C-alpha cells in the first residue's frame, strides 16, 4: 500500500522524539490548567518551531495538540473544572467517579479512551487524506476559492452564538491577512507606513494577542488566588481487561463521531464531545448511570476529542483548509517553513506528509506513556494559583513574540490585540474564526483574483464547472440551513 511504504527512519530521529516529548509535556500541563488550554500551548510553542527542521517542529505542535486534549480531562475529573472546552462533557461523569469511586480509575479511563481516539483519528488521517488529496487535484482556482469560502462559512456559522458577529470575525481575520506587500503586484497594503508590517502582521503576535494575552486578562477577572483542592492520593490506578472491554463500545462511538466531526471545519472537539456523550448514552445498556460517574460517560467524549484532532488534519493536509484554531496555528508553522498544505504537498513534501501521518500515531503513544507515568505530577500543577500562572505566562508570551522576529513593534501589537480581543470575546465575537480566516486569507484572495483575471472579471467562472457548481450549492445549503435554524429558534423563543 502506498501509504505504508514510507521510510520510518526519518521519523524516529532523536530530534523528532525529543520534540514529541516536549510537546506532550507542554500540552498536558497547559491542557490541565483551566483557562490556558491547547490553543495557547500550541501558539506559545510556534516560535520554537522556526529553529527546528519542519517535521520536528510540526510533530512538536501535533504532540501538544494531542496531549492538550487529554490534559483537559485531568482538571475536569479532579476538580470538576474542564481544562479545555473539549473536556466539558467529561466533567459530568469524570468528576462524580473521582469523588465517589476513584480519581485514578477515572483518569485511566480518560487516558485509555483518549489514546484509542487518537490512534483512530490517526488512521482516518492516513486513509482518508490521500484519496481526498487525489480528488482535489481536479480543482482549479475557482474551486479552491469556493472551498476556502465553505471553510470560513462553516467556521463562522458553527463557532459562535451570534452568527453576524462570527461573520464579522471572519472578515476581520481576512483583513488582517491582506496587510503587507501584495504577492501579485508588490504594492503595500494597509501598512500605515510601518516597515514592520510590510511582511504582514506577525502570526505569532496575532496568535499570542488573540489567544494568550486576552485569556490572561480573563483569568485575572475570574480570580487570582483560587486554590484548587483535589484527592491526590489515589491517582495511580489501572484498569482490568474486563473494565476495558466494558468501555469498548462508547470508545468506538466517540472515536467515530470525533473523527467525522473533526473533518468538518468549525465543529471540532468542543461539539464532538457532547455529540459523542449523547449518542453513547442512547446506545448504552445502562443509560441511567450517565451523570453519576459512568465509565462510558468518560470514554465517549474523551475518545471523541482526540479523534477529532486527527480528523481536523484531513481537510488541512488534503485541501489546505484548517478546521480549528489549533490546526490554523499548525498551518502557520507550515507557511513559515515555506510549505503550502493542500494536494500539492503530497508530491512536493512526501517525506514530511508521511512523517506527519505516522508521527501523529507516535504522538498518541507518547501521550499514553507520559500520561501513565506523569499524570499524578500534572495533577499537582493544578494547585498553582492564577497569581503565579498569569505573571509567568505573560513573560513567556513576550519571549515567544520577540523570539519570532526580534521586533519590539510586535510586542506592542500583541498587547493591543490582546486588549481588543479581551473586549471582543466578552461581546461574543468568535476568536477562532479570526485566526482561521487570517491563515486562509492568502489562499482565498489569490484564487479569487486568479479566477477573475482568467474570466476577465466575470463571476460566471465560479459556476462554470461541475465541482464549482456543487461547491456553490453547498454554500447556499449551509446559508439556508443557518437562516432556517435562526428563524426556528426565534419562533421557539417568541411568546404565543
Amino acid at each position, binding site marked *: 500500500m502506498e501509504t505504508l511504504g514510507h521510510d520510518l527512519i526519518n521519523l524516529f530521529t532523536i530530534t523528532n522524539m525529543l520534540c514529541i516529548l516536549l510537546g506532550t509535556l507542554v500540552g498536558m500541563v497547559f491542557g490541565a490548567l483551566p483557562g490556558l488550554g491547547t490553543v495557547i500551548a500550541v501558539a506559545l510553542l510556534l516560535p520554537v518551531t522556526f529553529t527546528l527542521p519542519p517535521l520536528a517542529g510540526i510533530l512538536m505542535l501535533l504532540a501538544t495538540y494531542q496531549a492538550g486534549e487529554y490534559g483537559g480531562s485531568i482538571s475536569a475529573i479532579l476538580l470538576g473544572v474542564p481544562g479545555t472546552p473539549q473536556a466539558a462533557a467529561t466533567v459530568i461523569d469524570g468528576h462524580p467517579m473521582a469523588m465517589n469511586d476513584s480519581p485514578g480509575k477515572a483518569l485511566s479511563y480518560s487516558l485509555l479512551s483518549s489514546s484509542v481516539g487518537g490512534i483512530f483519528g490517526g488512521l482516518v488521517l492516513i486513509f482518508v487524506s490521500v484519496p481526498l488529496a487525489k480528488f482535489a487535484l481536479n480543482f482549479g482556482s475557482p474551486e479552491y476559492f469556493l472551498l476556502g469560502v465553505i471553510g470560513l462559512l462553516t467556521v463562522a456559522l458553527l463557532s459562535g452564538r451570534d452568527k453576524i458577529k462570527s461573520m464579522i470575525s471572519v*472578515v476581520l481575520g481576512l483583513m488582517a491577512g491582506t496587510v503587507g506587500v501584495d504577492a501579485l503586484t508588490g504594492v503595500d*497594503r*494597509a501598512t500605515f507606513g510601518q516597515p514592520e508590517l510590510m511582511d504582514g502582521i506577525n502570526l505569532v503576535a496575532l496568535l499570542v494577542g488573540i489567544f494568550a494575552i486576552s485569556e490572561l486578562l480573563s483569568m485575572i477577572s475570574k480570580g487570582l488566588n483560587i486554590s484548587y483542592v483535589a484527592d491526590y492520593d489515589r491517582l495511580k490506578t489501572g484498569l482490568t481487561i474486563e473494565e476495558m472491554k466494558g468501555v469498548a463500545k462508547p470508545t468506538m462511538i466517540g472515536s467515530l463521531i470525533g473523527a467525522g466531526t473533526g473533518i468538518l471545519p468549525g465543529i471540532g472537539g468542543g461539539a464532538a464531545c457532547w455529540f459523542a456523550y449523547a449518542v453513547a448514552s442512547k446506545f448504552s445498556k445502562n443509560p441511567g448511570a450517565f451523570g453519576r460517574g459512568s465509565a462510558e460517560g468518560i470514554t465517549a467524549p474523551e475518545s471523541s476529542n482526540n479523534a477529532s484532532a486527527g480528523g481536523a488534519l484531513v481537510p488541512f493536509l488534503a485541501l489546505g483548509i484548517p478546521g480549528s484554531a489549533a490546526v490554523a496555528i499548525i498551518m502557520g508553522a507550515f507557511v513559515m517553513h515555506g510549505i503550502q498544505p493542500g494536494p500539492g504537498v503530497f508530491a512536493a513534501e512526501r517525506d514530511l506528509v508521511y512523517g506527519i501521518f505516522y508521527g501523529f500515531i507516535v504522538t498518541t503513544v507518547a501521550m499514553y506513556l507520559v500520561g501513565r507515568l506523569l499524570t499524578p505530577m500534572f495533577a499537582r500543577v493544578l494547585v498553582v494559583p492564577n497569581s503565579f500562572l498569569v505573571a509567568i505566562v*505573560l513573560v513567556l508570551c513576550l519571549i515567544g513574540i520577540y523570539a519570532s522576529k526580534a521586533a519590539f513593534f510586535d510586542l506592542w501589537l500583541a498587547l493591543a490585540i490582546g486588549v481588543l480581543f479581551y473586549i471582543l470575546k466578552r461581546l461574543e465575537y468568535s476568536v477562532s474564526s479570526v485566526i482561521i480566516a487570517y491563515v486562509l486569507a492568502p489562499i482565498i484572495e489569490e484564487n479569487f483574483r486568479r479566477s477573475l483575471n482568467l474570466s476577465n472579471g466575470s463571476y460566471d467562472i465560479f459556476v462554470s464547472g461541475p465541482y464549482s457548481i456543487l461547491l456553490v450549492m453547498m454554500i447556499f445549503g449551509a446559508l439556508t440551513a443557518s437562516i432556517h435554524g435562526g428563524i426556528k429558534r426565534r419562533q421557539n423563543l417568541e411568546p404565543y
Partner: protein
Amino acid sequence: MTWRSLNILISTVLVLGGASYAVAINRSASDAIFFSSAGIGPAYFPNILAVLLVALSVITLVKNLRDPSPELASKVTTVNSIYIVATLVLAAAAIAAWQFTGYFYPVVFILLALLIAIFRAEFGAMRSLGVGVVTSAATTLFIYALFGRILQISF
C-alpha cells in the same frame, strides 16, 4: 457603561475601522489598479472585505438598538479591573524599558516580582513582595538557563 453601549461603541469602531482600511488600501494601491488586468488589482478583494465589514457592523448596530432584552441594559462589570489595568500598565512599562535600555533579564525580574506582589496583595504587602521576589528570581534564572544558555537566544 451598559452592554448595549459597549456593543454600539465596538460596532461604530468597526465601521470606522472598515472605512479607514478601505481608504488606506485604495491610497497605496491606486497605481497598481490601472495596471491590473480586468480591474482585479490589489485593492479589489480588500474593498469587498471593507464593504462586508461595514455592512455587517451596521447590521449589529441596528440589532443592538432594536433589541429590547434586559441583559443589554445591564451594566458591564469587570471583576478585578484594577488588576487588569495594573497588568497592562506594567507590561507596557516593561516592553518600553526593554526597548529603550536593552536589558531583558532585569526587566523580566522586576516585571514578575511586581506582578506577583500585586496579585497577592491580599496576603500582606511584605509577604507578597517576598514571594514575588523569590519566585521572580527563580523564574528569571530558569528563563536565562533555557533561552539564554541552552537555546542561545539573545534578547
